[in-house]
């Protein structure tokens, strides 16, 4: 670290400023040592075939530290006036909202009804203070220090963050929305989200990353390195819908680790809306740990300019009678690059399981490139499993057909792209959520159609 403070000092500062319990301070230090001690990932190892680990090192930027501001629970109406973006219908119909900038001064709100039911929705730092036992039990259990060098880095340096806890039997019928903004130039940021659903609980969470486009020097996007982690544990018979919106700015490098553990009779729908950043790598894994555990994973990726994306997904069937379905769609323009690798692993004990995986890539320009590699580790033969992958250019006959109806080329391409994504997003039954996710995608498409 080039800054005045050593990593270990930074970790101690975070623990001190946050008034954190000893176990957490120790964990952070251990994580930092693990990060420092671990060699850079081997490019030959399959997870790093497509990206350079050096790009995610933080020695040329300043890791952001907490400033002592703790989470502030506020009246929902106040949160709604925080920024124009959230002033309008974006906040309507939400059960809760959490906004933080540079991992600091989180503002959050939760509808009365759910607070009374025992739901917790706040930043992790506040949660550590108020609910240390719950945190000690769950933090770092899905994404541990051992997971990877960069996951350890997040454990050492995260602050702010998001904590969602839904007690047994509580079903939240409206979405919760968390926003992590990074605005400081030449900074490293470590967003972390922890979701715990107890037995029979249900929740929908949109977790959004972004930065103000002109927060860097001379009105450019800020230069940021983001190491983000999401871990979720969903107990028996619970239902989670988790949507991660990667809307980082044009000069952010992002590394992301997501893990969801799905218990017996529980259902996880998880989605990635991948739009932002310049150099991005994500490792996403859902483990099916009990009978009838169900996972649906969707991905919508829209890349342009020189954006680099490296997405790896895993569906791990640990228990018998489990179900997974993945639908990941990629559209690239200009000179964007995407590598997708998708593993289906069916353990020896996971008989009678079903696993489906589909990755389709649509290329709008000659210079963009996409790779798609399905990976299967099927240790039990008593399963049903299919996978499909395609990479292809836009169909010129479709473009022509639309143009004969009066659509200019750009609009025709846009219609085809929207149509390409539609079956993925249409899997989301909740109408309001469906509309919200479309808005992110359309937001990016809009800037393209109009240029």
């Amino acid at each position, binding site marked *: 670290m080039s800054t005045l403070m050593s990593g270990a000092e930074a970790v101690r500062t975070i623990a001190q400023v946050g008034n954190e319990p000893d176990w957490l301070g120790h964990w952070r230090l251990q994580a930092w040592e693990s990060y420092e001690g671990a060699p850079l990932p081997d490019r030959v190892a399959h997870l790093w075939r497509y990206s350079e680990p050096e790009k995610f090192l933080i020695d040329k930027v300043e890791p952001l530290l907490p400033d002592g501001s703790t989470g502030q629970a506020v009246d929902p109406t106040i949160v709604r006036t925080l920024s124009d973006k959230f002033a309008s219908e974006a906040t309507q119909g939400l059960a809760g909202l959490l906004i933080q900038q540079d991992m600091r001064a989180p503002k959050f709100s939760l509808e009365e009804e759910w607070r009374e039911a025992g739901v917790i929705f706040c930043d992790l730092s506040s949660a550590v203070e108020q609910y240390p036992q719950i945190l000690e039990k769950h933090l770092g259990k899905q994404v541990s220090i051992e997971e990877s060098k960069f996951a350890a880095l997040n454990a050492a340096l995260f602050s702010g963050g998001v904590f969602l806890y839904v007690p047994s039997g509580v079903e939240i019928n409206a979405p919760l929305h968390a926003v992590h903004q990074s605005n400081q130039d030449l900074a490293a940021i470590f967003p972390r989200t922890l979701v715990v659903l107890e037995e029979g609980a249900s929740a929908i969470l949109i977790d959004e990353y972004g930065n103000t486009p002109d927060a860097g020097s001379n009105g450019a996007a800020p230069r940021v390195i983001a190491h983000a982690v999401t871990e979720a544990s969903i107990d028996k018979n619970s239902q989670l819908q988790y949507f991660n919106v990667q809307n980082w700015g044009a000069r952010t490098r992002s590394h992301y680790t997501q893990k969801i553990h799905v218990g017996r009779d529980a259902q996880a729908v998880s989605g990635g809306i991948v739009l932002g950043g310049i150099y991005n790598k994500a490792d996403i894994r859902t483990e099916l740990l009990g009978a009838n555990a169900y996972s649906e994973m969707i991905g919508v990726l829209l890349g342009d300019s020189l954006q680099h994306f490296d997405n790896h997904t895993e569906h791990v069937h640990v228990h018998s009678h489990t179900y997974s379905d993945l639908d990941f769609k990629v559209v690239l323009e200009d000179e964007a690059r995407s590598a997708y690798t998708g593993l289906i692993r069916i353990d020896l004990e996971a008989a009678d399981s079903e696993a489906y995986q589909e990755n389709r890539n649509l290329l709008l320009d000659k210079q963009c490139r996409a790779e798609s590699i399905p990976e299967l580790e099927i240790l039990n033969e008593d399963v049903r499993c299919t996978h499909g992958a395609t990479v292809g250019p836009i*169909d*010129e*006959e*479709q473009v*022509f*057909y*639309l*143009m*004969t*109806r*009066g*659509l*200019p*080329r750009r*609009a*025709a391409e846009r*219609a*085809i792209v*929207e*149509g*390409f*994504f*539609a*079956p993925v997003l249409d899997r989301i039954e909740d109408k309001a959520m469906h509309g919200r996710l479309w808005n992110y995608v359309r937001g990016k498409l809009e800037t393209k159609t109009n240029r």
Partner: protein
Amino acid sequence: MSDNSHPLFEVQNLKVAIDGNEILRGVDLTINEGEIHAIMGRNGSGKSTMAYVLMGHPHYEVLDGSVKYKGLDMLDLDTDERARLGMFLAFQYPMSIPGVTVAKFLHSALKAREESGEVAVREFRTNLNEAMNLLGVDSSFASRYVNDGFSGGEKKRLEILQMFMLEPDFCILDETDSGLDIDALKTVAEGVNAMRSEQRSMLLITHYQRVLNYVKPDVVHVMMDGKIVRTGGIELAETLEENGYEWIEQELFQNTEATGIGTAEA
């Protein structure tokens, strides 16, 4: 055809190649406002090629000739510009656009024609329902993906539905009649007849005479090997129905023998 009629559409000496093969070898065609012309010809004679070229399909290379519509030179314009000027093609093989609903598709097509880029949703819905009723298509049509999993007949109806909604001034219908059972054919023909007006012209491409029992053309052309080789009235279609195309070939052949050149205009 009256003498004071205005040409809406004029093709002169159109020569077109694809992958270096000359497919259209000098087509001349003039269509006046309000007229319906039929082009008949066997498979492979170049009818669809002509339809595509008139709409500006990028894969075809125009070697020579001109295409004028409303006095404007179409060959300089992109496909979408031609469409917004009022040209329309009902495809022989309509493309499917998965993920895009019929309603959304039509709404965007209409919006593309408006200066403001806006078309009121309610008014649009009303018009769409009306058009669907008229063409006897189920209301579920609107929310299905464009041509995705449609039967042959449904695809043709959707082409006509689009023609209804977009209200073009010049319609090219490429074998809209083929592959339809008699009921579907009648519905489609009724749609076409309902669209008939003083200002609107149509080019009906077909290789059966059958549709001409329902839609009466003003002029009938025969295309063979990339050229229009005969032009006449409805009786030309009737002769073709009875005698097929061989007699024209024979006449053309004799003509070639006699003159030593390969042209034969009726």
